[in-house]
């Protein structure tokens, strides 16, 4: 005993009864507990890693990965690496190109090469496919032969693009996702006005998400307050009414909005019947931004109500009573005493709804029409239709960064510890 005290006083390690350092001893006893805890988390951890983290990393990698040209036109790529980009390259490059094109046609990879190039330099798909067809029978001088096959090969822009694309990694997908591109001298410039789209879509996505969050807060706050303050038998019923849509299929809810809101739908019929509008003046409430906002607000409402409710539930009624007894009228008491204590719930609910809506896909796809499409619809388009996975990955990457920035800002302003989800 006294030895331990001496050791502690002398700044040395405290010893356990059997002479081993106490820290080591403690670690040993805690190790088993830690192993058990790790074991319990392991299955889910592995599942999340394999099905979530790994695909995300892979997808993000795809946004900068650029293997098509580099792998399928290796000779051209190797020589172009040292080209200064000023004048049309010399005969040896054309020779390499002819060989590569012939080879790519042989391996049936020319289609991918042509498609990849076409994303960067619109309209050159046929230049590649048609030249490749002739490449096998070409004879020196290849420069003349190729330019004869298609005069695009005599343009500097073609070669600059090919040089840029022949590097294994590229930032061009991110530029495209931000409505920017490289010009002929490899400077980053804005896309031509009529081809700019993604910045506007990002802006619209943010705006719709903000609108949906605000509407959810506006509609959900009073409901959550009632839930938290009503006697149990009423609040249970109300809770079921909040949760019932939550348990219904997303598709069913979205499509029922179509029934309600479409031009010949229930709501318009009622308006006409009430003579609020005439038959010609039916209101377009769906297949536009309004439809997206209405349907998404309805679907995401529980995600606002539940965090708010869980916070309000913990605020004892004595706070309001105290404020009243101190002479504040009910409105002042509410605004100055009750409402500030619900801020963690407002923060959690808004963040949750905002993050969910920023990546929302099905609802805008079904009821969004043209003006209600959000960024995820474009990501899906590039995944499924245009097959430009690199651009889809870049758009997704920007979305991810946006959400992370939001989360960071939130934790700076409100503090993540202040957030209550349930």
């Amino acid at each position, binding site marked *: 005993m006294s030895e331990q005290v001496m050791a502690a006083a002398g700044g040395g390690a405290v010893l356990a009864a059997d002479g081993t350092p106490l820290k080591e001893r403690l670690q040993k006893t805690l190790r088993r507990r830690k192993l058990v805890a790790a074991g319990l988390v392991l299955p889910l951890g592995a599942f999340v890693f394999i099905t979530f983290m790994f695909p995300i990393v892979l997808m993000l990698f795809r946004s900068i990965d650029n293997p098509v040209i580099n792998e399928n036109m290796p000779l051209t790529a190797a020589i172009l690496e040292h080209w200064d980009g000023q004048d049309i390259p010399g005969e040896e490059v054309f020779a390499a190109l002819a060989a590569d094109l012939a080879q790519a046609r042989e391996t049936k990879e020319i289609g991918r090469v042509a498609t990849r190039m076409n994303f960067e330099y619109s309209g050159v798909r046929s230049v590649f496919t048609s030249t490749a067809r002739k490449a096998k029978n070409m004879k020196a001088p290849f420069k003349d032969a190729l330019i004869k096959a298609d005069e695009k090969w005599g343009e500097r822009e073609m070669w600059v693009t090919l040089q840029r694309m022949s590097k294994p990694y590229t930032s061009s997908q991110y530029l495209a996702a931000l409505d920017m591109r490289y010009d002929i001298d490899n400077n980053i410039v804005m896309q031509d006005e009529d081809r700019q789209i993604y910045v506007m879509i990002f802006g619209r996505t943010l705006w719709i998400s903000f609108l949906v969050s605000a509407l959810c807060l506006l509609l959900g706050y009073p409901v959550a307050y009632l839930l938290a303050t009503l006697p149990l038998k009423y609040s249970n019923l109300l809770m079921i009414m909040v949760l019932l849509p939550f348990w219904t299929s997303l598709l069913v809810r979205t499509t029922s909005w179509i029934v309600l809101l479409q031009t010949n739908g229930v709501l318009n019929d009622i308006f006409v019947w009430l003579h609020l509008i005439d038959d010609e003046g039916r209101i377009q409430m769906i297949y536009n931004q309004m439809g997206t906002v209405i349907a998404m607000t309805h679907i995401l409402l529980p995600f606002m109500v539940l965090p708010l409710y869980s916070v309000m539930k913990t605020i004892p009624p*004595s706070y309001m*009573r105290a404020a*009243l*007894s*101190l*002479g*504040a009228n009910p409105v002042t008491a509410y605004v100055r005493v009750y409402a500030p*204590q619900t801020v963690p719930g407002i923060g959690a609910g808004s963040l949750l709804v905002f993050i969910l809506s920023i990546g929302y896909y099905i609802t805008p796809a079904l009821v969004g029409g043209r003006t209600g499409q959000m960024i995820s619809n474009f990501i899906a388009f590039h995944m499924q239709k245009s097959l430009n996975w690199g651009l889809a990955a870049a758009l997704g990457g920007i979305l991810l960064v946006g959400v992370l920035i939001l989360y960071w800002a939130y934790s700076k302003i409100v503090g993540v510890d202040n957030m209550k989800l349930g």
Partner: protein
Amino acid sequence: MSDPSDPLVRFIEVQKSYDGEILVVKNLNLDIAKGEFLTMLGPSGSGKTTCLMMLAGFEPATHGEITLEGNPINNVAPHKRGIGMVFQNYALFPHMTVFENLAFPLEVRKMGKSDIETKVKQALDMVQLGDFGHRRPMQLSGGQQQRVAVARALVFDPQLVLMDEPLGALDKQLREQMQYEIKHIHESLGVTVVYVTHDQSEALTMSNRVAVFNDGVIQQLAPPDVLYEKPDNAFCAQFIGENNKLMGTVKEKSGGNCVVDISGSGVVHALDVNAGDVGAGTSLSLRPERVEIDPPEGKFPNVFEGKVEELIYLGDHIRTRVNVCGHDDFIVKVPNISDHASLIEGNPVKVGWTIDDCRALDVYEGP
């Protein structure tokens, strides 16, 4: 309009029911004088907190009238009553500092900034927390939060302050200290306090008068000493302090005294307070410290032979459990003085008491 001798608060035939079936408060009549410290004491569910809530305005009275300075306040909203209140869990606003908490009642009264600062400072000094204004309630200990709550209820100079079991969450030592502090604040400010508690020692320590509630009815309304020494009925005798209960039947009554037969174990001479007619059942109430061990011959009319069952040493006194008159839960407090009787468990012992200390009351069977 009001005479200084008029009561500040009057409950006139007040009834309260929550469900329309059970009366939680039954026909309450109570006058509270200006400057008084009145405690509503009772077990949980006895209606005391309901009375306080009706006075504060958070619960409407089902029937009857409550007046403040002679004016009926049944239809006055809580925030217009100007009554300070200290809540069970303090209800300090967690998002405001101590200063802001205290400034709140003054701000809603549109008081000027410099006046607010002076008043808050005064109130904080009163509870010895002058330097804690910038802290949040969460950063204070339970006792400090309690003081802030008291200061907040007093800072806007209400003439009436309600306290709803304010010391319930504190440990014993702190609770006792706070009892004195609240008592001293009451004395120095002259404010009227209505205090609700289920802790009888708290009620005895602090109050001018105590209203003992049970079953929605005030059982007794009296100063602490009267309540303890002269309980009106068996409930009060049981609820306040420690009490020896002897059950028996009234044998004869004469001149304010009565003779009670303790089911075949002998007769006791007692003071007839609330006993029924001859032949009716009664419970005798006797405080443990008023019983004497081995009394001199002829000193008491009531002397009984018993057996020492158990001795518990408590420092200042020795709690002695004696089997007397067929009751084996008869407690005698033997003061630990230099020549106190030395008792041995299992030995026979004589106990005795006066007529005045033994009060014949009604029979209370308990809830």
